């Protein structure tokens, strides 16, 4: 499974934006798609330009998430977020410094609420969930 360290290593290895974006798009393509039946209004995270859905499951003290977006680069960003949060305990999720992770990846601007991609709202939602289960 891809870890945050793998992603940091890979992305810092590229020196052109083309390679970085190709990698993110590949991550997006390899993110398992969500069942269309699950893509409901209730699972939608408020975004603006692109849609983001999330379906959390809590089992054996660990969270797992199904996530999806209608935009490919956002799917890539979701895969990057999932490397940090998927199959983790509430404690692990709460302790993970996502801001630092995204700034190391030089992707911090995508975590801004003004981006309108729903990513920030999704991260907030996951953290809230983790807090309520801890």
């Amino acid at each position, binding site marked *: 499974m891809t870890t945050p360290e793998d992603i940091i290593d890979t992305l810092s290895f590229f020196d052109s934006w083309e390679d970085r974006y190709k990698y993110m798009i590949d991550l997006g393509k390899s993110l398992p798609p969500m069942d269309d039946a699950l893509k409901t209004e209730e699972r939608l995270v408020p975004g603006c*330009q692109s849609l983001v859905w999330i379906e959390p499951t809590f089992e054996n003290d660990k969270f797992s998430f199904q996530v999806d977006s209608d935009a*490919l680069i956002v799917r890539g960003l979701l895969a990057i977020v999932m490397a940090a949060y998927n199959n983790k305990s509430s404690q692990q999720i709460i302790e993970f410094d996502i801001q630092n992770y995204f700034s190391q990846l030089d992707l911090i601007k995508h975590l801004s609420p003004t981006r309108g991609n729903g990513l920030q709202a999704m991260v907030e939602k996951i953290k809230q969930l983790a807090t309520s289960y801890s």
Partner: protein
Amino acid sequence: MNNITALDNQTNAKRKFDIKEVRSDFPILNEKVHNQSLIYLDNGATSQKPQTVIDAIDNYYQHFNSNVHRGAHALSDKATELFENARVKVQNFIRANSREEIIWTRGTTESINLVAQTWGRENIGAGDEIIVTTLEHHSNIVPWQILCESVGARLLPVNIKTNGELDYEHFTQLLSAKTKLVAVGHISNALGVINPVEDMIKAAHQVGAKVLIDGAQAAPHLVIDVQQLDCDFYAFSGHKMFAPTGIGVLYGKRDLLDAMPPWHGGGEMIEKVSFSGTTFNKLPYKFEAGTPNIEGSIAMAAAIDYLEQFDRDGMTEYEMDLINYATEKAQSIPEMKIIGSDCNKTSVLSFIIEGCHSQDVGMILDQQGIAVRTGHHCAMPLMDALDLKGTIRASFSFYNTKQEVDKLFEALEKAKQFLM
């Protein structure tokens, strides 16, 4: 500062439109983004500012900063003179009959809300109808929804045809004795389609309705003549026509403005205040409560001077040349579908690339230094009507070039390679 009116300007020799020189008037065009030369194709959202506009703000704060209409001192007199000259400049720019018909606002949005909350509340009641179009920006929908909600009136949208053009026949079907107002955009921000406002104004007047034109997208592209149009209200923003943000204009016919109650209360808009009753100032001050955006007004006058030094029809021609060139190039990308075509339009290329999300395309263009807008363009009802989630909008101004159009298409090819 000068007092040259538009009329004087017309008799003066015009500056030759030299694209190289024009580009050097706009310092931001030399910026780099993501280590690439900026290609700014988001003029529909806001325009860039020429050095003369930037200097006007600077000059105001360096030499004239003072409150207007108040101080009995030299600086305040000077600031007031510049501020009021700017009003006359705007009056001539849109060929209004008098300076009293020019109300300073923060922009189009505030201008429209002003009309909704003053004229609207006085003149629109239960069972009355307001007509807008499916092409409108949210700014020309929501203020009317709020009004309709509170007075019990109905908001009726005119349909569009599949090419993005207004369905004029539907408009005439909606018009009736119940119609109190037609609020329509001069040019659609999302598609660049020019609406037949002259005909709409005539038709609306025949049933006794008033007409408000949202001119936010027209002011930077067309020569506007409110008397010839015979519209009742005309709203526009400085920032889309090379002036700063935070300044805009509401034009209204004088008899209408005179009869309208004030909106915001405060200083400047009063004649006499007492606890037994307050009387209001005359036009245009009645609608200008509080300290205005003085430097914004003065810089707006500088933007008008900038535009009017050229033959404006020549600039429009130049912009049309760009959009025609871009439209032709679009034929080379089979997946590209232009939204808003085969109709009267300005220099806006709104499109989708089938199989790609607009936001993804926008992000890949951004990496290549190209600024476009993606999404619903504050026109969600329009996107719904076209069954689209959004479009990619390249909106051109007179400082853009064919080389930039070429770069846009190279960048789109790259986006396609990445995303498809």
